[in-house]
Every structure is written in C-alpha cells, then in structure tokens.
C-alpha cells in the first residue's frame, strides 16, 4: 500500500477563489492510501516545495499528488523536489485544478466538486505508480551524412568544425551534387562552381571528414547515439590510394560513346572517366557497362597508360561497417522524367530542353563551352520560350502536386543571362504565377522584366510542335485573353523536381517518415524542421522539400547544430515512460511491431519461465532508447502483453473509475 501525500495549492486566489481548498484537503484524507494532506498558498514556491519535501521525509510518503496548475507548468518542479529527498520522481502526479477547473468555472460548489474528482483520479493513479528509472545509453561521437551535395557538404563541414568525426557517403564518384552542375546562382549571379568547389576541397581536406564516394548505405541498425551502418563501396576499378587524377587514362580510352551524366547526356565521355575537372575526390572510375575490357576482355589500354599502376580490373565491391551517433539524410533531388509530357515534345525534339540542360549549355565547362547553341544544329537560337510549372502544381499522374519553388527564380536568371550575353535574342517566359519569396528575389525578377526586357506572358503553353525547323509554341496570353503562337528556336522546360529515388529506400531503412511525394517528413513542420520523427536522424536539403541553395545551406547548418548537440553528450537519458512487453503474455503475433512508428519493437527468441515451464518463445522486445512512448502498440496488442510505463492500462482504468465514481 502506498503512503500518499496530497498537496493542494491555492495559487494565490487563482485556485482558492473557485475551489474550496480546505474541503479538497479534507476529502483527500478519505481516499485510499492517503496519509497526509495539506494546502498552501503557493506550492511551487521554495517554502511550498519545502512543505512537500518535509512531508515526504517525515511521513515517509511513497507517492505525492499535487493539486495545482497544469503539469506542463510545474510537474518537473515537483518531481525534482521529490527526487531531492529520495522519492522517485515518477511517483509524483499532478491534478490540474487550475487550467482545467478553477479558471473555467465560476461556481465554487461546482469547482470544488470537480477538483475533488480530479484529485481522486490522481490519487487512484499514484496508488498504482511504480518507480521508473530513466535508462541511459552511450553516444558514439561520429556522424554519418548520406549524400554529398551542398547540403551534405555544409552539414559535414559544420559538424567537423565542432570537432566531431563525420563520414559523407555519396553514391556518385564525386561529391558536389546538383550545385556542381549549375552555371550561375540567383539572385547574385555568382558562379556556382566558384563558391562550391572550395567547400568541396575543404571537406576533402578536413581531418575529421571522411568521404566515401561511389558508395551507398546498405543498411542501418541501432538507435539514437548508437547506429551501425553498412556502407557498400562500389568497385571503381581504380585504386584510390594510387590514382593521381592526372586524367591520362581518360584521354587514351577508346570507348567514348557513353552519354556524359554530368552534362545531362548532351555530350559523351570515355569509359574510364573523371566526372568533371574539379571532382572531389579526383580519382578516375571505370564504367564496366562501357569498358571494352569488361565487355570483350581485350583492351586494357588504361592499365598500360597509368604510370601510377592504379587501374585494377579485379577490384570488388567492399562493405564497411561503421558506428555512428547521428545520421543526417541529405539525398537531394532530381529533375522529373518528361516522357509523359507529350504536348511539349521533349523526347521527340532535341531543341526542347530542361533548365538543367540549359544550365550545362551555358556553363563554360559544358558541352558547348558556354556558347548558347541549339542542340540539334548548333546554331544560335533567336527566339527562346521558357515554360514554367512543367509537372509542378498538377494533379495528373505524371504531375507533382507541389510547387518546385526554384523554377521561377532560375528561369529569371536564365532569361537575364541570355539577354545580357545575346541582346538580339527574344526571350518569352510563360508563367502561371511568378513566385519570388526571398531576399532580393522580387527585385531580381523585376530586373529581368524591366532592365533586360524579357517578355513575361501570363498563361501556359498547350503544345510545342516542330514546324519547318522551328518549334511552334501554342500558348495562351490570359491578360490579352488570346491564344498566341510563337515560332521559337529553343524551348526550355522548367521541369519539376522530385526527391532522389534513394530517399524512399533510406527512409525505410531509418524508419523515418516519408510523405506521398517521397519527401522525408520533419518531426514538426514549424518547430522541428530539421529533425525527423526518429530520434538521431536529421534532415538536410531538398530531401525534406523543395529548397534553393541559401535555404538548403541554412537547413544544413541547422541539422549540423542538432547533430553537434547530440554528439556533445556522453550519454543520452531516455524517457522512462516507454512500452514494456510482458514476456509471459506475449504470443509473438507481431501486431505491435507493425504499428510502431519508430521500429522500436523487434522480435527475439527468448527462454521464458512460464510458471515452472521453461521454453523458448518468440516474444516482443522493446528497445527503450528508441521507443518514444506513444502507446500505439499497447492497443494493438491482442493479448494485453504490451503496456506503457507511467500510463499503464491499470492506471488509466483507475483514473476512469475514479472519475465515474
């Protein structure tokens, strides 16, 4: 039997004006287990807490009920007070007789009656409370960043600067991501490579950062502070410790017909290649699908060319296992496939291109050396039509329902750059809305219109058809209320962006949430935008939602701060109010495993002693460091084996009984 003390706070007149506190204190003494009751003007004050502490010591209390304000306000205060004199903090419960009683009722009789009932429910609960001890687990002081784009690089740099080890896992042969492909960045028009490549170099040179390029995360197990990741290092067929990145092999390679991914397939590369001149790490990689040695077994030219003896045709994939305290997902995005947009003729006509392709065309290191030339006949286009919202903001199966956010700005950038470099070019932009929320964004867009004379047409393009070597564009001008036809030389589609296809796999691996568009979901849309719902997993960049570079970088740094905050701890205190499975009642049905949003429940084969009968059974086991204590499993459990500590079935039943009595 518990020895419970009940303490009723007046809260000045906040409670005492509507609740007869003396009456509640007297009523408390009639409740089972209550050995002491007291009322005081301000229970949360030092002397009020002293009253509680003294009673715990003198009366040997095993449970405390404080009838006061909301537990959200002072539960922690009273639990701390109880702990200071040796009582387990989880033996303290609060009856909320201020926000839920005195403040909302005017009648004293009514208020007092309700306060008594709330006190009764809390006493009933405390009668069944058990001491709970918060578990602790160690933190591995190393972070894993999945994805080596600008988001991943920034996160890694910030974490490393704080003195913690970081590994970047990038599936491509080089880090840099999409930003490395861009020509200029809005709204300042500074060169993308000029601001990104120093960061790439910094990351590679940092002694706390290790880059696993051409690698993928195979599986992740564990929990916050203690993840184990298996990383598969794909065979490059080039020894990283020997390759100097001189590029001689790429010049000698006879197989030169593979579309160059870095240039969006607008020119070709050799079978042994370095993605681009500023690649980090700058090692060659052999594409076995294109390499003659792998196809016919004959060539071997690169091996003979290489003075460093770095080429190794027998290299195998390698799996590395590493432990991490925190994981940041920065898997980024891709431009959607435009195969289903027949009206724009992207697949039929080489002169209908995506904005990312235009980005490469305009880049000095791109397929045309920076000259604006049509892909089909390498002539200079005189009339260019930009089409906005291609695949964004739609509801057809091929569309994305969201706004891709970056297109309005990069289109203004492209239009402006073209008009600056080639003033004889006519540029039309078909838009539905121009969205420019961001610092200096609207000014940038207005400059395109006012200073550079870009024609913005309110309306969408319905059809692009080839017509005598030109592209006939049928669009509508809604302000004129007319259908207009433009014979263009080049059509640039602002294709929607979508999360990288790896995001879904990684989300499943990490048991973190993903939305209908495959964007990873944050723990709270406003207040926890860089954390995932799973403890220890953080989000950085476009994998969480469309973002431009400044936003990505700020989110990346925010994620880094969260990681640093976690890694700075030696141990993590877990919430002790977690699920617990009664191994004798568990029938091994897996119902709880399925509803757990955190993957905290696993099934183990364990020898149990069922009233003297020893046998091995398949039973649920809760990882207390992962469980967040929502209680979904307790309801799903058909055998009643699963219970939630601190909110047990019996406790809640007792509260129900007390209220209905």
């Amino acid at each position, binding site marked *: 039997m518990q020895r419970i003390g009940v303490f009723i706070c007046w809260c000045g007149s906040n409670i005492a004006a509507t609740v007869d506190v003396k009456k509640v204190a007297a009523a408390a003494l009639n409740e089972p287990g209550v050995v002491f009751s007291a009322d005081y003007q301000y229970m949360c004050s030092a002397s009020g807490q002293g009253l509680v502490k003294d009673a715990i010591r003198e009366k040997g209390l095993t449970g405390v009920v404080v009838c006061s304000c909301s537990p*959200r306000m002072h539960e922690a205060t009273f639990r701390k007070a109880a702990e200071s004199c040796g009582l387990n903090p989880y033996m303290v419960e609060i009856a909320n007789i201020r926000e839920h009683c005195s403040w909302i009722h005017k009648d004293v009789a009514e208020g007092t009656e309700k306060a008594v009932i*709330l006190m009764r429910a809390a006493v009933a609960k405390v009668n069944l409370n058990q001491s709970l001890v918060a578990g602790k687990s160690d933190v591995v002081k190393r972070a894993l960043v999945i994805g080596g784009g600008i988001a991943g690089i920034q996160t890694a740099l910030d974490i490393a600067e704080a003195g913690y080890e970081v590994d970047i896992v990038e599936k491509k042969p080089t880090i840099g991501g999409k930003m490395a492909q861009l020509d200029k960045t809005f709204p300042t028009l500074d060169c993308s490579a000029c601001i990104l490549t120093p960061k790439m170099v910094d990351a590679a040179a940092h002694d706390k950062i290790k880059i696993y390029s051409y690698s993928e995360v195979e599986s992740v197990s564990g929990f916050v502070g203690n993840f184990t990741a298996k990383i598969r290092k794909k065979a490059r067929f080039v020894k990283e410790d020997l390759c100097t990145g001189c590029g001689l092999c790429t010049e000698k390679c006879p197989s030169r017909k593979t579309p160059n991914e870095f240039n969006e397939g607008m020119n070709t590369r050799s079978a042994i290649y370095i993605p681009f001149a500023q690649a980090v790490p700058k090692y060659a990689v052999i594409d076995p699908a294109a390499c003659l040695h792998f196809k016919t077994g004959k060539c071997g030219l690169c091996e003979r060319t290489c003075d460093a003896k770095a080429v190794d045709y027998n290299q195998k994939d390698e799996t590395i296992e590493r432990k991490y305290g925190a994981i940041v997902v920065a898997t980024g995005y891709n431009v959607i496939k435009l195969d289903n947009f027949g009206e724009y003729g992207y697949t039929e006509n080489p002169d209908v291109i995506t904005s990312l392709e235009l980005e490469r065309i305009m880049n000095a290191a791109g397929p045309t050396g920076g000259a604006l030339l049509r892909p089909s006949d390498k002539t200079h286009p005189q009339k260019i039509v930009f089409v906005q919202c291609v695949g964004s903001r739609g509801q057809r199966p091929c569309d994305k329902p969201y706004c891709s956010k970056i297109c309005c700005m990069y289109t203004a950038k492209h239009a402006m750059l073209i008009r600056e470099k080639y003033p004889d070019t006519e540029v039309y932009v078909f838009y539905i809305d121009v969205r420019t929320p961001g610092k200096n964004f609207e000014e940038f867009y207005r400059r395109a219109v006012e200073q550079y004379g870009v024609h913005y047409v309110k309306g969408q393009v319905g059809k692009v058809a080839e017509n005598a070597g030109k592209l006939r564009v049928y669009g509508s001008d809604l302000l004129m209320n007319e259908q207009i036809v433009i014979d263009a030389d080049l059509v640039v589609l602002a294709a929607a962006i979508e999360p990288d296809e790896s995001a879904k796999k990684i989300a499943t691996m990490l048991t973190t949430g993903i939305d209908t568009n495959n964007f990873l979901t944050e723990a709270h849309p406003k207040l926890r935008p860089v954390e995932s719902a799973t403890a220890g997993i953080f989000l950085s960049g476009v994998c969480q939602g469309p973002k431009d570079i400044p936003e990505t970088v700020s989110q990346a740094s925010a994620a880094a701060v969260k990681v640093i905050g976690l890694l700075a701890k030696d141990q993590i205190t877990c919430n002790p109010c977690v699920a617990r499975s009664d191994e004798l009642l568990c029938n091994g049905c897996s119902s709880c495993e399925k*509803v757990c949003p955190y993957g905290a429940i696993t099934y183990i084969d364990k020898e149990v002693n069922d009233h003297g009968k020893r046998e091995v059974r398949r039973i649920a086991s809760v990882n207390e460091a992962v469980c967040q204590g929502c209680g979904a499993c307790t309801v799903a459990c058909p055998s009643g084996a699963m219970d939630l500590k601190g909110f047990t079935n019996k406790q809640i*039943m007792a509260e129900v009984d007390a209220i209905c009595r």
Partner: protein
Amino acid sequence: MSVEHESFKPTIVAFCCNWCSYAGADLAGSGRMQYPANVKIIKVPCSCRVNPTFVLRAFQRGADGVIMCGCHPGDCHYSTGNYYTRRRMTMLFDFLDFLGIERGRTRVEWVSAAEGARFASVMNDFVKNVTELGPNRKITDLRTKPEHKEGE
C-alpha cells in the same frame, strides 16, 4: 423525463493527448473560456494510447459520454498515432452504436495546442449533446449509479 433532463448533469470522460489537446485545454483554461464542469480530462501521451476497453470501462462505470482529443491529422507528435485512433474509434463507435450507446455519446476531435477556444466550444457542444440524450443506461453497471437503482 423532462424534469430529469433539467437536473441531469452527465459524467463526461475526456482523453486528451499530452502534446496537442491537453495543451489546448490548458489554453482554454488560461483564456478563462467556460465549459461545463462535467468534463474530466485524463492525460494520455497520445490519443492512440486510448484502448477501446477504457471507453467501455467508462460507460460501464457510469459515464454518459466519452470524448477523445488528439492532434490534427498529420500533426501527431508521434507522426501516425491519431490515424490509429481514427480507425480504431470508427470501429468502436459503430460497435457501441450497435449496443445502443448513441453516436452522440462518443466523439473524436482534433484540437491543437493553439486551439483553446475550439477546445471549449467542442466541450460545450459535446456536453449539450449528451445532456439532450439523457443518462446512459446501456452496458452500465447499475450498482455504480444509485439514482438508477431508485428509479427501478
């Protein structure tokens, strides 16, 4: 019957999730928004912690209405808890309806931590509905209600 209605004060059990609705109720309190004293709140970590047996127990012990409040869909602190609640309670309420416990006595509502006024209006409305329905006589253990005994 009508006389009984006038004096009838239903017993209402409200399960509120710790993160949204309990905070919403606190906000209703700090905003001094009145709602009937019949509503007694039980704090649960998430609305999905509410086992259907708790609802049955409440009616068995003499409650006249049970309401569950959780975060708005999509806002659940535990990402998916309120979706479970929605499904489970849809089934349970169908079953209770079959048993003769009217739909008006049971409810699931989404109240965020910022919706103090909504919490109060939901409670006012719910209490009004239950009061109109009168005392619950189904699955109630009559020993828990002395006035029922007298009535018989």
